[in-house]
């Protein structure tokens, strides 16, 4: 475990070096947050929906605060795969899947905490109907946090699957473009999943993407009652298991057909 923890720590520290990128990211996500909130307010002014506007703005702000957890890629890791520097990692006495999983987790965690915390403070300070509401209840907050942990594990697993595909295609853009689109749509980042037609929601909420941010947000804002939590968490745990298993199989298969680029 020491090696995995050590690479996790190292990657955390590296993320701290990109302070300029952090500030840029915060400003960008704040801008997007305000634009989206204004958009939904305009929509509600025309035709109010069943879901109160406060729930929608809370949804938007939580999505924006943890955006970096959802969509971020480790450029160094991609570079290793492209250039063949991955050779060095392959001759270490570690399981390569978990070694990279630790790296990805560190990057996603530190990146989103550094951006998320200031963003959440900012969103709390906005007037009612624009900003972030308090959690529906104390159990809602705790269950939401627990769901966020499983969501996080799923996100890292998805990222590691896209890394595994990059080992085959060498260029991450295709697979990331495709997975990114699915991710943005079905995770609720583009449009809160709560605003999709009810019949759609039945399907969408069991997809892996809904487990990442949507499930924690709904628990936080009370759209899912705390009694429903065991079912929600069970779905998340199943997906965590499936995505990690799929990633491990992919990496194992890669090992057999590996070619090292660049001589």
């Amino acid at each position, binding site marked *: 475990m020491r090696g995995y923890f*050590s690479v996790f720590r190292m990657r955390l520290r590296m993320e701290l070096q990109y302070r300029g990128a952090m500030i840029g990211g915060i400003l960008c996500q704040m801008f997007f947050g305000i634009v989206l909130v204004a958009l939904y307010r305009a929509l509600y002014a025309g035709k109010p929906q069943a879901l109160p506007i406060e729930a929608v703005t809370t949804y938007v702000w939580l999505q924006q605060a943890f955006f970096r957890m959802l969509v971020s890629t480790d450029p160094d890791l991609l570079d290793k795969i492209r250039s063949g520097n991955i050779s060095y990692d392959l*001759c270490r006495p570690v399981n390569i899947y978990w070694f990279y999983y630790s790296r990805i987790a560190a990057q996603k965690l530190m990146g989103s905490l550094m951006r998320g915390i200031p963003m959440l403070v900012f969103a709390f300070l906005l007037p009612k109907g624009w900003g972030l509401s308090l959690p529906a209840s104390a159990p809602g907050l705790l269950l939401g946090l627990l769901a966020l942990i499983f969501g996080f594990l799923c996100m890292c697993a998805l990222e590691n699957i896209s890394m595994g595909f990059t080992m085959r295609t060498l260029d991450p853009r295709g697979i990331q473009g495709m997975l990114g689109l699915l991710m943005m749509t079905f995770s609720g980042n583009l449009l809160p999943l709560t605003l999709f037609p009810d019949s759609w929601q039945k399907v969408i909420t069991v997809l892996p993407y809904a487990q990442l941010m949507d499930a924690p947000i709904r628990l936080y804002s009370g759209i899912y009652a705390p009694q429903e939590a065991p079912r929600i968490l069970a779905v998340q745990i199943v997906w965590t298991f499936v995505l990690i298993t799929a990633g491990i199989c992919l990496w194992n298969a890669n090992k057999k057909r590996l070619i090292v680029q660049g001589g």
Partner: protein
Amino acid sequence: MSYIEVNGLRKSFVVRKKREKGKLFREKDTVEALKGVSFSVEKGELVGYIGPNGAGKSTTVKILSGILTPDGGEALVGGRVPWRERREYVKHIGVVFGQRSQLWWDVPIIDSFSLLKDIYRIPSAEYEKRLGELKEALGLNDIMRTPLRLLSLGQRMRAELCGSLLHRPELLFLDEPTIGLDAVSKIALRDFLKWENSEHGTTIMLTTHDMEDIAALCSRVMVLGHGQKLFDGRLPDLLEKFDTVRTVNVKYGAAVPSVSFPEGVSASWTDNELSLTYSPAKLPTAQLLLLLQEAGPISEMTLQPENIDHLIAAMYKEMDL
């Protein structure tokens, strides 16, 4: 049984080429990087592995370091099959890829080393001792806290070497470790490798294009070409086989009547200076010296073996590589 036993190792790669105009599909080429290579290496040996670009040297190293799985053949290193028991196996080996980096770009090298300490689970006391020793031998004392990106190539290579040896590997693979280094760094690196080999008995397998590396370090050399082993033995024996021509420059104290040399010697005169090339195999050096001395009073003389790079080029040519 030897420490490294390689038997009939084969590996091929598929190379897809750009589609030709007017054709529907891309062409595929299968490149046989290794066509059944066999050798064995004893513990504590320092072996040079040479061959032109694309001969399969790096492929061999990658297979023996557990990264690639071969298509066929067997390899046992210290009783283990590298690609089958990868995680257990790689604890005992170290690898340096001359054109790649294992240390983290943005962080001080000491931090990369402590990550390696955790990855290889080196006990702290053992780590401190080994790091102290390597720091001293590789002259890293002043740069331990410098981020990798601020180091020169020579410093970086020494740091890479330190990283690969922290866990005291029994076997060290070096894939072109002196690529791009200046003369001072090269010599320092060679001295270090000799020291590591004699002090700790580390078996070293070195691929290089720098024949000086081989001449300075390796008691044994293997030549690889087109995925096959073409020579395996001592460097002097290899050179003898291909070392056909030598150059002699002689300066006479006075004008000399022209000398007639046997066939196969080409001579050219500039005033009192003679420059000639001969082949020791055809004309023994002692006999040549006698001829030269009879011709007149010699004031200066130099004898040069042919440049080692030219020799190897001639050898590759002869072996049709």
